[in-house]
């Protein structure tokens, strides 16, 4: 308890002296002090209440003024686009190596309906069926007259259809602007481009995403606004691609093949100038993937990249090159080729019996399985595996297609000596034609590794030296002899110095073993041989050449003539100058003055 001092002490003391009770004085004092304090606090409170009143008045005025400012502003229509992440449009174009358009965008419209805004849904349904006969009439009228508030009717409509829908004149029919993907060249380069579809669809725009090929592989890049519309330039040459596809289609028909593929690749850079796979499709109207059966029968299947086949004798050049590289043989070394060659329970045969022995060059020229098997035996399984690995045969190709990783080579689980012997002549290891083209390009590139690419003009470091340049030159020389006097004699194209190697592989049965009458015929060519510029690989699936007395299936009769035609058509387009030897009998007299 707070003790209150007796105040005023002087008066209290004097009162005590006079014998009076000082309480009255103290009470009087307390009352006076209380009154003084009350006056003081009241004055202070008066000021502070005034402050409070002014503050409140200011606050009310502020709220009122703010209301007035808001009321004076015209309301803005809420923007749909601001209410969510905008759907990106403007996909970049895809061009060929000289700037011709392979894929671009076209402004079009989608058609949607808001049935609750419709005047006469039944009539609208009827008239829509007349414009779009493919619509399900019953379902459409049920949707329009039912409780639905929104439905898409068509994803893409033509200007004529749009006008016709306009003419129905119903406010419940609305158009959403769209940018659709257009491939102006139709089937050309279909497997490379792949295709696109609408992904996230809104009323005001829709997202276009790639579904296959480079469209999907470069999807993020093509949609990236940071690129500012820069097109994607592919290494494809549209003219060459068209020529290759035309020749290939004709050849496939002529040779009664069920499928065909051709690759034309630049040797120095690995750029793919043309790549075709038949049968093909129109990326503007991609067929649905097969739901049953073998996916490789679908036109969507890219035989050049996804298809892995035993490519047969085209592999022999790698065994020979490696043997030359290792110094096991030289081109003139004689190898025993007595047929059949017996290894354990296996028998290896040649197409013809080539006698007791052949030189290494002749093994290539005549395509002797036995000779190659013996060379592979000399190399051994481990070294062979390592060498094929450096050529890229053990991994999928690095080409810029989403399908590329599915083209994984099939290699034996156990790389035994017999595996090495069969792989030496191209059986027991399945790889895609693009693998083969890359490996041939490596040989043609003086032994420097070539990686396939679809992009044009990208800087690239020269590949690793995987084969000695002299060995590579030796191999090319042998391949030239294959064309001039060997199995690929139909492959000679006047003036373009074609070198190459044929390969005829029996097709494997899905149940195991090999078909007797179904082959994969391949022609892998390099031209011109004295300064290799291009590699061409052409593969026919189950070809039969029936002009002779008995059906002929070997590559020399099927793939090689078609391949030669491809080179004959494309070499001038590629800007190669034919080397014409000035013949004595040309009737010209050279004069000098």
């Amino acid at each position, binding site marked *: 308890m707070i003790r209150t001092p007796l105040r005023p002490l002087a008066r209290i003391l004097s009162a005590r002296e006079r014998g009076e009770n000082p309480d009255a004085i103290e009470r009087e004092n307390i009352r006076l002090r*209380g009154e003084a304090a*009350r006056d003081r606090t009241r004055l*202070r409170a008066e000021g502070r209440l005034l402050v409070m*009143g002014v503050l409140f008045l200011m606050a*009310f005025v502020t709220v009122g003024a703010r209301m007035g400012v*808001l009321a004076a502003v015209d*309301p803005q229509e809420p923007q749909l686009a601001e209410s969510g992440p905008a759907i990106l449009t403007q996909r970049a174009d895809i061009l060929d190596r000289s700037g011709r358009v392979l894929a671009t965008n076209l402004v079009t419209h989608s058609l949607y309906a808001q049935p609750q805004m419709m005047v006469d849904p039944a009539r609208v349904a009827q008239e829509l069926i007349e414009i779009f006969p493919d619509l399900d009439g019953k379902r459409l009228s049920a949707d329009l007259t039912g409780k639905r508030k929104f439905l898409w009717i068509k994803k893409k409509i033509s200007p004529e259809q749009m006008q016709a829908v306009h003419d129905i004149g119903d406010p419940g029919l609305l158009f959403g602007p769209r940018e659709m993907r257009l491939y102006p060249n139709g089937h050309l380069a279909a497997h490379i481009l792949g295709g696109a579809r609408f992904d996230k669809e809104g009323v005001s725009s829709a997202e276009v995403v790639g579904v296959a090929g480079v469209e999907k592989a470069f999807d993020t890049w093509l949609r990236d606004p940071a690129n500012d519309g820069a097109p994607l330039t592919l290494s494809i040459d549209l003219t060459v691609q068209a020529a290759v596809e035309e020749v290939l289609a004709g050849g496939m028909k002529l040779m009664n093949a069920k499928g065909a593929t051709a690759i034309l690749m630049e040797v120095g850079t690995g750029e793919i100038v043309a790549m075709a796979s038949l049968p093909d499709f129109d990326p503007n109207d991609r067929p649905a993937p097969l739901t049953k059966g073998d996916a490789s029968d679908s036109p969507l299947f890219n035989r050049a990249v996804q298809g892995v086949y035993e490519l047969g004798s085209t592999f022999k050049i790698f065994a020979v090159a490696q043997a030359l590289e290792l110094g096991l043989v030289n081109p003139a070394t004689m190898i025993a080729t007595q047929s059949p060659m017996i290894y354990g329970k296996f028998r290896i045969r040649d197409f013809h019996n080539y006698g007791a022995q052949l030189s290494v060059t002749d093994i290539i020229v005549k395509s002797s399985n036995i000779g190659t098997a013996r060379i592979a035996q000399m190399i051994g399984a481990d070294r062979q595996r390592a060498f094929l690995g450096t050529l890229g045969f053990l991994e999928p190709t690095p080409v810029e297609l989403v399908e590329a990783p599915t083209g994984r080579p099939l290699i034996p689980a156990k790389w035994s000596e017999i595996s090495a012997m069969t792989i030496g002549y191209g059986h027991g290891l399945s790889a895609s034609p693009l693998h083969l083209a890359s490996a041939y390009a490596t040989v043609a590139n003086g032994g420097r590794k070539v990686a396939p690419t679809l992009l044009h003009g990208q800087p690239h470091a020269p590949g690793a030296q995987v084969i000695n340049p002299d060995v590579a030159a030796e191999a090319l020389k042998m391949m030239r002899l294959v064309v001039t006097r060997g199995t690929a004699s139909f492959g000679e194209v006047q003036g373009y110095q074609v070198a190459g190697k044929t390969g005829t592989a029996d097709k494997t049965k899905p149940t195991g073993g090999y078909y007797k009458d179904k082959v994969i015929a391949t022609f892998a060519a390099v031209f011109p041989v004295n300064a290799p510029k291009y590699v061409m690989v052409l593969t026919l699936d189950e070809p039969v050449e029936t002009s002779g007395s008995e059906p002929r299936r070997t590559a020399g009769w099927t793939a090689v003539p078609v391949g030669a035609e491809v080179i004959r058509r494309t070499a001038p387009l590629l800007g190669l100058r034919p080397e014409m030897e000035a013949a004595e009998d040309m009737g010209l007299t050279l004069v000098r003055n």
Partner: protein
Amino acid sequence: MTEMVFGTVPIRAGEPVLPRWWRTIDKWALASVLMLFCIGILLGLAASVPLAEKNGLPPFYYVQRQMFFGGVALAAMVLVSMLSPVQVRRLGVLGFAVAFVALMLLPIFGTDFGKGAVRWFSFGFASVQPSEFLKPGFVIMVAWFMAASQEVAGPPGKVYSFVVMLMVVALLALQPDFGQASLVLFSWAVMYFVAGAPLLLMSVLPVLAVVGGFAAYNGSEHFARRIDGFLSTDIDPRTQIGYATNAIQEGGFFGVGVGEGTVKWSLPDAHTDFIIAVAAEEYGLILVLVIIALYAVVVVRSLIRLMRERDPFTRLAGTGLACAFGVQALINMGVAVRLLPAKGMTLPFVSYGGSSVIASGVALGMLLALTRSRPQGQISDILARRGR
């Protein structure tokens, strides 16, 4: 003779209750409150229809309810405003005690109506929010303590009031009901200020508030989201604030017309927290300014009348009641015009709400009772020849 037979005519000590009430009451404030109530009914006709429709009730069900509760509230207000300051104090302290106990019993008997905070007692036909009734009682209680502390050798009332305030704020924060808690804190601070708080302390308080705000921002995600929404420059049109802003803009100066507004259909709280947006959309800026002016009249007139008041209790209690009333209206409208971050707070008398309107009626009745004009010792001043 008559007087000898029948006794003298009884002489009353003062004038009759009603005439004196009418003579001394602040008629402007009374009229303003009545007008606010009428505007509330008018807006309820528009704003509560969607709610009734949603709950499958007759369209004007909530208007009828509001008229009933509003009638009770107005009656309570008039009755309370007839009390003398001492009676107000007794009523307030009693009310505080009851409401405080009710508040403590909430966790046991209360219900949250699925809104996440246990704030209500449900009585079937109506629900009661004890914190609404606690506020006026709390103000009276604190004013009593503070006034007592101003006596010579009086109790340390400011410390007591501080303790009471802390307890109430803690109880409210536990519910959690930060809106009511901040109102309680604010009314205590205002009374402390008027009762003579050291200016140094008052200048430190805003700093503390800022620090507390930062702590809440970092501690509570809910709180942080609201502040972020307030600070961002563009308004998301799908939020409540977005709808409210759009409604005010649509309304312009004269409104889109009675019953033509659309915001009440999109805002779930159109009949309570955002009723001002409904008013702005249908009746325009005009009605909004009238509403603001009515609140300003009640608050500012009360404060000015209290400046003349000599009794510390009356002055402090009146200040607390007037400021709590005014600040609640200010916060509600400030949120709608985006001067303040979103905080659910009803607009007293205008918003729909059964128990809250009765509580507001009681509080306003107390305020009116305290601001009645009464002798302020002018005559004794003259007699005592004192300065004032």
